[in-house]
């Protein structure tokens, strides 16, 4: 068991869905679940779900080899502007390296972030993929 079980388990909602922290004080919205507004520090925050759709604003194709991440290479890390206007950085999958460009419409898809092979947990979470035509 390489990774902590509760560490992943307690955050799974934030990995399985795109959750935004909305500040009732400053009005700003941030990707991920924060206990306080990361902009103003207010604890008067609420968590809201994103629709999981957005557009690629920027991306990098990465060959950076990280232990236990080798089989996912090359990977694409993209900045996605969600329809809610909030930025999120995540992996972009199901697209050819030559097809990645700004403006690609994407949706959040459940994938394996990594897996603690061969005996440990599989870490599922949302990545982004081009919206399937008709979806």
């Amino acid at each position: 068991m390489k990774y902590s079980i509760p560490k992943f388990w307690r955050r799974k909602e934030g990995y399985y869905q795109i959750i935004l922290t909305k500040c009732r004080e400053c009005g700003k919205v941030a990707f991920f679940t924060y206990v306080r507004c990361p902009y103003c520090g207010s604890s008067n925050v609420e968590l809201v779900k994103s629709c999981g759709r957005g557009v690629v604003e920027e991306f990098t194709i990465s060959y950076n080899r990280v232990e236990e991440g080798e089989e996912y290479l090359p990977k694409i890390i993209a900045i996605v502007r969600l329809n809610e206007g909030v930025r999120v950085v995540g992996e972009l999958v199901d697209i050819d390296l030559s097809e990645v460009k700004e403006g690609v419409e994407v949706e959040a898809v459940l994938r394996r972030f990594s897996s603690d092979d061969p005996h440990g947990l599989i870490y599922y979470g949302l990545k982004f993929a081009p919206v399937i035509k008709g979806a």
Partner: protein
Amino acid sequence: MEVSEVYVINSALIKIDRHFNKGYKELANEVVSEVISKSGIESIDLVVVSNMLSDCILDQLDISTILMQNLGMTKVRTLRVETGESSGLAALEAAWMAIKSGAAENVLVIGVEKVTEYPTYKINKVYGKVLDYEVEFIRNITPPDYAALVMKAYLKKYGLKREDLIMWPVKMHDNACRNAYAQLSFGITPEKVLTSMVISDPIHLLDTFPLGDGAAALLLTSGKAVSNVAAEPVKVVYVDSAVSAQFHLREDLTRLPATAVLASRLKEKFGDKVFTEAAIELHDSYSIYAYIILEELGLAERGKAYEIVSELEFVNVSGGLKARGHPFGATGVYQVAELHKLVTEGFAGRKFDGKYAIAHSMSGPDYNARVALLQKLA
């Protein structure tokens, strides 16, 4: 209550290298022995050890205690400081605060990192932990990915081509050729930058630091004690640090918010020319960060830092993280040791006679930034 002044009275460093035949204890011992000898300091009150990855790489917690046990220094106060890649300057910050407050008079700062104990892919993994594990690293985002996104945003914002940003590594390698302690003391051509391996496009291997082991040490003392020592003391005028918002919360990726805060605070306290009159060691973990740091410090106009790289005489004389090397937790201590030498006995074939020397360090994409302002006594 009168606050103490803080002085660096001696510094020591070893060549950053793949020291396969030496452990962290041997590396630390070399710089500690050197920095204490001939210092004139009789007793040390506090030892601050900077190290980023002992838990991950060395399977060692409480490295400061273990190190003191191994160096025969069991009666001294000691603590380890870790703030990611900027740990070295954080150790200086802790030491500076201890002396300023009067809690200590003589403080030894040790920066040590044994990086080459594992292959690169394993080090890449533990290095990635400087990001927010729960938000970023678990989602397979690593530091060079962010540097790549910053570089692309920068190129786009200023309408530049990738080829416009190739002189930084060339300059750093050139500087490192004169630094006997640098890991990569060889020159490179501009063409070589873009033909080197891609890490995260458009970041190439030659845009980033090599992995190497290093150790550096500083001996600090209070104003009261400084008159008793023979060496040429350099005053630690100010040490400051700040934290910036996480990457995905930044609308303008071409800015480094924590570094910007420190730059304005330092200018407010010491005048607008504080950076232009200083020799500087800055944190060029990825070359794009060097250009932006130059802009944040006011040394270059926004989007034009690349035009002034060749004119930078006393910026990263060491060769920077790029070519001197970046033994993570030791790097900030290296920077201060290099600046200390640069303004006293001379360093890397040069001597600086200007007013200030400034070390700038940061972790990840400016997740935290730290600066130390040094001044040679007239």
